[in-house]
């Protein structure tokens, strides 16, 4: 009898740790995708509804690179998918750059200085349309069958334990673990670029005060384009990583775009590192909430936490005010 009660408790403890570990891993990947949106929305203040579709394009790009171009054969099934995800970065960077140059740039940056609501209305409509075009175009090109990038790591796990005297064992899914690791590395690279390089800081300066930035010799239009392109590429890398454990189809963007916005606002608008942590918190909340809530409600849990945080910290978890008080 006593023995039974201990094992009940052990099951709860075990599933909590299991959910927490899963949350930490997907949290890192969510963190990376939030970093991408943070450059576009958090820093450059461009409303982009198509960010979820950028993620989707990253997924399909990585998928076709692995299945169609034999990256698996070349690098082996273990490293191939992760390299494919990384390669989605530069390719979608170019895509984002061109998209900004010919389309999005017309309703952002120097073109909307002084416009009503800083061009947000036009951005809303344009990127909503873009999102539909990309998702529907994806349906025609890629079909509606859910895909996943198969790697042997998806179905292998490390076993931690037994802990707490034989009762608790935790599995760490290897595909998620490697994806989380790659996410952290890419995010750290991005933080270094933003915080250390003159080019990275010039993006912040161009967003902060475009007029003064141009007096410093910073090409504000190009800064916007660069931020948009980097933001697209970063989210695409995250997409490629998600694709190793999450089945996707052309409409997958909607599952993630809300998570990204919530993460960016939760972390504090204007801070790339904050966005990573915002995404991380959301990953943890989402996974841990599955312990107590039915799976359909896991996104509800995210928003309850979101509302609580924003109630107490209107600038987000890591936002700081640059105005004198």
């Amino acid at each position: 009898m006593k023995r039974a009660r201990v094992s009940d408790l052990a099951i709860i403890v075990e599933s909590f740790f299991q959910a927490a570990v899963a949350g930490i891993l997907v949290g890192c990947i969510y963190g990376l995708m939030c970093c991408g949106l943070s450059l576009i929305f958090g820093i450059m203040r461009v409303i982009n509804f198509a960010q979820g579709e950028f993620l989707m394009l990253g997924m399909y790009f990585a998928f076709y690179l692995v299945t169609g171009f034999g990256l698996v054969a070349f690098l082996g099934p273990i490293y191939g998918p992760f390299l494919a995800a990384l390669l989605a970065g530069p390719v979608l960077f170019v895509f984002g750059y061109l998209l900004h140059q010919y389309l999005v740039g017309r309703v952002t940056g120097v073109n909307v200085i002084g416009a009503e609501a800083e061009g947000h209305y036009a951005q809303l409509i344009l990127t909503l349309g873009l999102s539909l075009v990309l998702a529907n175009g994806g349906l025609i090109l890629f079909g509606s069958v859910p895909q996943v990038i198969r790697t042997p790591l998806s179905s292998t796990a490390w076993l931690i334990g037994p802990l707490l005297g034989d009762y608790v064992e935790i599995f760490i899914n290897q595909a998620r673990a490697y994806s989380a690791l790659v996410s952290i590395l890419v995010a750290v690279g991005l933080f270094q670029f933003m915080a250390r390089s003159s080019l990275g800081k010039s993006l912040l300066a161009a967003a902060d005060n475009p007029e003064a930035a141009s007096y410093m010799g910073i090409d504000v239009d190009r800064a916007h384009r660069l931020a948009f392109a980097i933001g697209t590429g970063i989210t695409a890398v995250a997409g490629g990583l998600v694709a190793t454990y999450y089945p996707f189809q052309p409409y997958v963007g909607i599952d993630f775009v809300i998570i990204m916005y919530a993460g960016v606002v939760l972390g504090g608008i204007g801070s790339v590192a904050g966005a990573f942590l915002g995404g991380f918190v959301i990953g943890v909340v989402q996974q841990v909430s599955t312990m107590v809530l039915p799976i359909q409600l896991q996104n509800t849990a995210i928003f309850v936490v979101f509302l609580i945080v924003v109630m107490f910290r209107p600038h987000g978890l890591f936002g700081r005010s640059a105005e004198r008080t």
Partner: protein
Amino acid sequence: MLRIEGLSVAYGGLKALVEVDLEVSEGEFVTIVGPNGAGKTTLFKTISGTVAPVAGRISYRGQDLLALPAAARAHLGMAHVPEGRQVFKTLSVDDNLQMGAYVAAGRRDWVRNRKRIMELFPVLDERRDQLAGTLSGGEQQMLAIARGLAGSPHLLMLDEPSMGLAPTITDAIFERIRAVHKEDGLTILLVEQRVAEALESCDRGYLLDTGRVALHGSYETLLSDARVKKAYLGM
């Protein structure tokens, strides 16, 4: 060094500058004075490229400035310290200076310039990690000037650096401007409302009124002009 000929600017139908001629020679200290709305800031913005003229020519060291976009002009060695300071509020003091040094010359001379800046404005050294938006008004003005200096400019353009500052701070700032003119050999183009102090430091001055150059000449010429006396000096 800077030559402006027949420059006219209009906002919509409203004429802000009408056929303005102005010249600044290498090593000079030139002041522009004039009442509110005279077009002083508009003139500076047109030189820097954030406002486009309807007519006229601007050349800087023989280069046609109007053929270049705003961001390219800063790379020629001119620094614009804008009206109302316009520091990068969300960046630290040090990052603001580093953005001032974004041009190639600024990067090349970064160590030397930074040392000189901290000598002129020691308070910025104390506050180097503070967000610029949280500095006091006087400190922000010092930062705005320092940010201009960080680019190793030949021509420093200052738009009302005394705006909203206490007289003692204003004096300190004017003294630093004179110092960079005399000791570092920078050419200065200064817009000011505090006419007495501004004219006192300069070689030559221009009086701008409703978009036209109403008067120009030496310090003595301007100071002895009845219009200047009446409007600014209360005499």
